[in-house]
């Protein structure tokens, strides 16, 4: 089913048990830290971002979404040598946006998830770039081809990841 505009009552709101709430973001952070050591191309992927989008869309609560994005982003920053808050800000926006979108749209099918992940990845990178350049004065270079390839790759992985994480959903 394509992306459809539905009323708030028609979309399902899910919750997760505490082990999933902690374990899945922690596993994403661990894989993001560990896999690039052996597969350098893996730096292109952003598993914490995909997890943020998944939780935000499943819970469909903007406050919960932005807080999830904020916490995951801050912990991701903590693992880098960069100041805390660059990923935090970007993922806060993404968490808020994804959960707000989840309230209004039904994004349960693969195509919708692919498009949503693609758009939010690009949005995340733009916000990250603006914060890093504007607030922290990092010397970053923007490359549309690179960002688009990375967005496609993340969206592709996101579709499979979301279906894998669907089994942890619990109806409210």
């Amino acid at each position: 089913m394509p992306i459809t505009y539905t009323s708030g009552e028609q979309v399902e709101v899910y919750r997760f048990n505490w082990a999933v709430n902690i374990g899945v973001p922690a596993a994403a952070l661990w894989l993001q830290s560990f896999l690039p050591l052996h597969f350098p191309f893996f730096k292109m992927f952003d598993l914490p971002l995909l997890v943020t989008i998944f939780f935000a869309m499943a819970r469909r609560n903007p406050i919960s979404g932005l807080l999830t994005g904020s916490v995951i982003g801050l912990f991701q920053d903590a693992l880098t040598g960069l100041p805390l808050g660059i990923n935090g800000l970007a993922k806060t926006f993404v968490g808020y946006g994804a959960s707000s979108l989840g309230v209004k749209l039904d994004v349960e099918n693969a195509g919708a998830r692919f498009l949503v992940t693609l758009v939010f990845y690009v949005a995340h990178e733009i916000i990250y770039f603006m914060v890093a350049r504007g607030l922290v004065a990092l010397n970053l270079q923007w490359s549309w081809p690179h960002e688009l390839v990375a967005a496609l790759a993340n969206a592709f992985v996101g579709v499979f990841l979301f279906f894998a994480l669907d089994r942890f959903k619990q109806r409210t």
Partner: protein
Amino acid sequence: MESVLGRYKNLIVLVVVLFAQVLGLAVQVKRTTDTESSRLIRVWAVSAVTPFEEVFVWMHNGSGSLWHNYFYLRGVRAENRELKQQIEQLRLEQVRLSEDAAQARRLQVLFAFKEQFVSKTIAAQVIGSGGSEQSRIVYIDKGESAGVKTDMAVITVNGIVGKVLKIFRSTSQVLLIDDQSSGVGAILEKSRLQGIVRGTPAGEVVLEKIMTDESVQPGEAVLTSGGDRIFPKGLPVGVVTHVANENRADLFLNIHVRPAANLNKLEEVLVVTKVDEKEPAPSETGPVRAADILAQRLPSVPDKSTTTDAAQANGGANGAQPGVTPKASLEKGSSTPPNPARPGDGAATAASKPGTVVPARPASSSPAAKPAETTPSALKPATEQRPEPTPVKVLDASQVAAKPKQAPPPATPSPAKPQDGPQ
């Protein structure tokens, strides 16, 4: 009022969270060191992630070791043969380099140079990375408890890797040299031009601050200069791959460097925990006489003390002789040319002083070398000389020179006299 708050609750929370993070960023950017609060979240994150990585690396290494060391030994014999050949070649190279090193030490003593030695290192395993394209850092499994401190150099056998940025109890964060916030004092090996090695946002390594009017060739090695007070001088940084001067108005060349260490595949590293800075001890170099040099270069030296003392008795009247090959070169029958007496060489230096020692000249024309004709191998071309199957006592020139005069045992060596040396 309540209805407004309720209506815009989501937006208000969003603004508050964003504002808090922007504020936190501003505080961190203003302060160069970590604040307590930011350090706390880093400790939590690292403590949560690194134990799993350590366990995984341990299991991976254990299974890999079992496979490679016990089951998969195909090709080991052939590899062993190749390595043995390589060792032989390296031994030859070592003979040549040891002379250069000895000369360098003598000069260092002469000019009272201080030398930096990596005297203590800790081996560490790389267990994680920053996981981001913008931040090039890795985590190692040694931290404060192992004696690691911030700003310690991290190296591999191939070259430098980075420096310790943050330390935790059992892990440390290492900033790689290809990160854009890193900087390493560097020097070009041949041209001796000094610059700064930095990372770029794209993850490349460049050498900065070399003026455009200088000439830098691709392939030239880049070493640490020691100017950053982190990396000891002389460690390999990388090799120049590309030199560009795209914008003529630029003052500096754009020099790309390929790191000597493979920064994308780091497994084990060494943390330099102690660097000694000292002058080479005079005992290491000692007063070097022409006879010592000659004795080392001859194919066989029976007894160095006797030889040198005899040479002293003879007034040290021996110079380096062309055509005489280092012992190891002879043993291997290598075509490596013998080290000629160079201007800085002890023998050559001594020989240049009139009246003290003999200038280098062909052995056949020197009376001092005449008895050496009894050992035909000494007169053969270097490439033809081979060790005899049975040990043949080869007399060096000093012994030979001492013989006709029947010098007494070397208890009281006589000072060098001008007339002692053959003319």
